[in-house]
């Protein structure tokens, strides 16, 4: 478990990091919490010649509230999101999702930005970020841009992020009082990652579903919004029958993964069962 040799930079300002990225191009990798990157380096699946550790850049840290939004710095750790009062009060779904990630050490080191940028198909955050319809703030040589979560994830370990860009913050709208979120996860027994993870954000009007967003991770090579489920349930009464019928659409149009941990048919079944249970929990 010995990585290859590399040059190490620890810039203290975002601009500095961006220009280092420009300078070293393909050879460079950004290091955040290191809990995805370092394991791949130790196995020599990645051998970056240059490491740009963004951990010293203060502007990428912290959680604040502005204009009905939570603004979360990319370097915010899973543990900070799990335990911050502001998160627990305003968007408890985020805290709940964080608590399902890895173990204490992983949550203390791993970051929200790192997880999203890495785009592991079994990572937890993407489900919640999709269901919350978050905006991702990205800085690059040409300045800042914003991408919707639904446009960010593009495939297996693939995102909209350019090689010379840095994810700086995640903006999440604070849901109103009639809106509830839930994250339900089945852990892959060895790694603890999601065999299936379903995040639901549901707004009720009386006993009907005014709107619902369902983000699913672990099932396909990229996390996705289960739009079939959403359109089936929106405007419908929240009965057990309607919820179950909607959940049946959890993998419509999706090619489920198959590996030694779960067959395609089993993953499809899990997505449906966990979607149903997550909606039931959010609707209760």
């Amino acid at each position, binding site marked *: *478990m*010995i990585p290859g040799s590399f040059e190490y930079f620890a810039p203290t300002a975002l601009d500095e990091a961006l220009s280092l990225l420009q300078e070293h191009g393909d050879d460079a990798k950004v290091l955040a919490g290191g809990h995805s990157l370092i394991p791949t380096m130790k196995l020599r699946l990645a051998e970056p010649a240059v490491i740009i550790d963004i951990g010293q850049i203060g502007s990428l840290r912290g959680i604040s509230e502005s204009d009905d939004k939570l603004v979360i710095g990319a370097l915010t750790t899973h543990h900070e999101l799990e335990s911050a009062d502001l998160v627990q009060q305003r968007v408890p779904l985020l805290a709940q999702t964080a608590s399902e990630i890895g173990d204490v050490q992983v949550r203390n080191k791993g970051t929200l930005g790192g997880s999203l940028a890495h785009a592991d198909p079994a990572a937890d955050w993407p489900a919640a970020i999709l269901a919350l319809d978050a905006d991702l703030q990205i800085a690059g040589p040409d300045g800042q841009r914003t991408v919707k979560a639904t446009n960010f994830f593009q495939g297996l370990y693939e995102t909209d992020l350019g090689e010379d860009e840095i994810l700086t913050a995640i903006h999440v709208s604070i849901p109103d009082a009639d809106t509830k979120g839930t994250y339900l996860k089945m852990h892959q*027994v060895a*790694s603890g*990652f999601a065999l299936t993870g379903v995040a639901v954000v549901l707004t009720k009007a009386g006993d009907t579903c005014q709107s619902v967003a369902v983000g699913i991770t672990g099932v396909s090579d990229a996390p996705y919004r289960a739009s079939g489920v959403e359109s089936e349930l929106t405007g419908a009464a929240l009965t057990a029958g309607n919820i179950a019928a909607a959940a049946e659409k959890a993998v419509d149009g999706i090619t489920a993964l198959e590996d*030694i*941990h779960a067959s395609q048919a*089993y993953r499809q*079944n*899990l997505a449906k069962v966990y979607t149903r249970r997550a909606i039931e929990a959010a609707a209760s």
Partner: protein
Amino acid sequence: MATIAAPTRMMGAPIKRREDPRLIQGLSHYVDDIKLVGTLHCAFLRSDYAHAVINSIDTSAAKELPGVVTVITADDLGEVGGIPCGAEIPDLKVPDHPPLAVGRVRFVGEPVAAVVATEAYIARDALDLIEVDYEELPAITDLDKAVEADSPLIYDDFGDNIGFTMPLEAGDVDAALAEADHVVSQRFVNQRLIPNAMETRGVLAEYLPGEGTLTVWSSTQVPHILKTQLSLIVNVPEQKVRVIAPEVGGGFGSKLNVYPEEVVVSHLAIQLCKPVKWTEKRTENFTTTIHGRDQVNYVDVAVNNDGTITGIRARILADLGASYQLLTTLIPTLTNLMIVGCYKIPNVQIEMVGVLTNKMATDAYRGAGRPEATYIIERMVDLAASTVGMDPKDIRFKNFPQPAEFPLEIPTGIIYDSGNYQESFNKALDIVDYDALRNQQAQLRQEGRYLGIGISTYAEICGMGPSIAMPAGGWESSTVRVEPTGKITVLTGVSPHGQGQETTFAQMVADEFGVDIDDVIVVHGDTGRQPYGIGTFGSRATAVGGTAMVIAAGEVKEKMAKFAAHILEANPDDLVFADGNILVEGSPDQSVAFAEVALEAHVAKNLPPDTTPGLEATHFFEPSNFTYPFGAHIAVVEVDANTGEIEIQRYVCVDDVGNIINPLLVAGQVHGGIAQGLGQALYEGAVYDESGQLLTGSFMDYAVPKATQVPHFETDHTVTPSPVNPMGVKGVGEAGTIGSTPCMVNAVVDALSPFGVKDIEMPLTPNRVWQAIQDAKG
């Protein structure tokens, strides 16, 4: 007087492990922590292919990397010998097993070349510069296919992929199967497991050219055997070889071996006259430290309507892997011996076939051959019960031997030392409240919920063992020495690596001499300090090594009693050893301090005639038989039929391991054993793909049970002392592993019986459980 101590103060006391404070505080030294000045670092280039011809190896670029000292291949090994196969079997085909591959590689991870550099990082970098030209051959990975006539061959000159066959026959199975009311047949896969000791392997070797001595620090369970073997393999006379097993972070059988890395690192240290170190990476540990289990079983059982089981027939394919490690060929034979479990089954027929495949060698892993046997019989007994419509509890009582029948010779030729299977089983049934559970199960089924109750009653073979049955001898040694200040040094030939004998052995010696336990030290794992010994495995250390120690202590005590009697002008037979004194029984003012007698024994000014100075004795103990622990495990699970997830609600076990020296340590062994046993049932499994690549080569894909994935254990005991050793102990290292695997599977199958599910292949992942329900639904 100086007979074996009856249980007194320390025996049976729940003392915390004396090893733990230093381990928890990081004050201890594992191989990798040992730093010698000028140490060079070794790394191994390993085969990426399961089966390939090596056309050429080019090490020139690696040799040029600054910091690289040497790069060697098999061509550079000179007179170095091969890896020994420790267990001969009639007609065994033994392939050559060179420490570095010669001409052909036969499993992924097989060492091909070794680099030595001034730093571990440089050694690792140099591996990428070695070029090997391979020509890939078809890989043999499937057991059933490997024995087919047209299978490709692993060793061309063997003619087939069969390393050995070992038949076992007692009674008349054909008649039993023909005459029985029912024949129950089932195929089982006892999947391959990866032991995963917390500390990976490691070797540090130092050769002093002036003295001609080789010292090897290795993370091993068998330092003495390793010393003898290394001396023969690397050609250093045995008196000049010393092997030290410092702190060893677990083994579970995986370090009961002689490995290529131990040989190559020793050879390099001799060649370079510099200390050379290799620390195994976790990825190497997955691919190239021995694996366990891996059998396919075809089993038929004859059962009558009243539940009597009259015969068992098994064809067993045991995956040996690509080459033999020390006990690769021995382990499957233990499955043969234990096939009838704790039942009286008169007719037995086994055809054991050892099969060579392009995978890492299998060898001893906690339980080693017995979990496989227990799995076969315990699953078959449940299937037989369901065939004749009996409760799985009743069929077990029906087939148990009676307590008065022990010692009991069973058809496979071994003699169970002592047992009372009814007592432990009844106790477990009481604790779990079996009848109430069955009622609850019936109720929940009405609600569409699937509760399952799983039973496993087992007997196993421990305390290994009489030398006649053990390749390297089955005895054990100990030296007990009372020092001039009255402190006691115990040297033992066993080599604990987590079992806690520094505590339990000290308890026994403290009792024997009536001294404080802190006055006793137990020293192990250094062939330069201890008398020759066999090592720690097969739940033998206490039953065999402990006995050697207690007998040696008794001899010292007898001598000390003579000295004390001389001082006190008393009869040695009237003396007792208590609270740091030696006193005349019944007249406590006639007493002398233990330490004073110890000093007198060494200054030797006032010793009785016809005695010699000093207080030291060594005993080599040869056991007359194995010991046979037994017990009953019961699990209660609920299965989520929508997802196949299993919730373990209760886990009750009543183990009978003979007399108990320290209940805390026994509980620890039982807990850890069950964790690994249910790991096999529910989580673990080494998966090779068709090309022989290990798909479960890291903890991301290979699921050892974590603390949150094991239930609360409700442990209890019955005590049936073993007649084989004076302490009446049996052994507890493997009981949990052996009892728990079939227990968990029986519970899940029981839960799903309303669907008609009869069997599910291990590990019972949620996916497999869900699939079994789908398949049963049709």
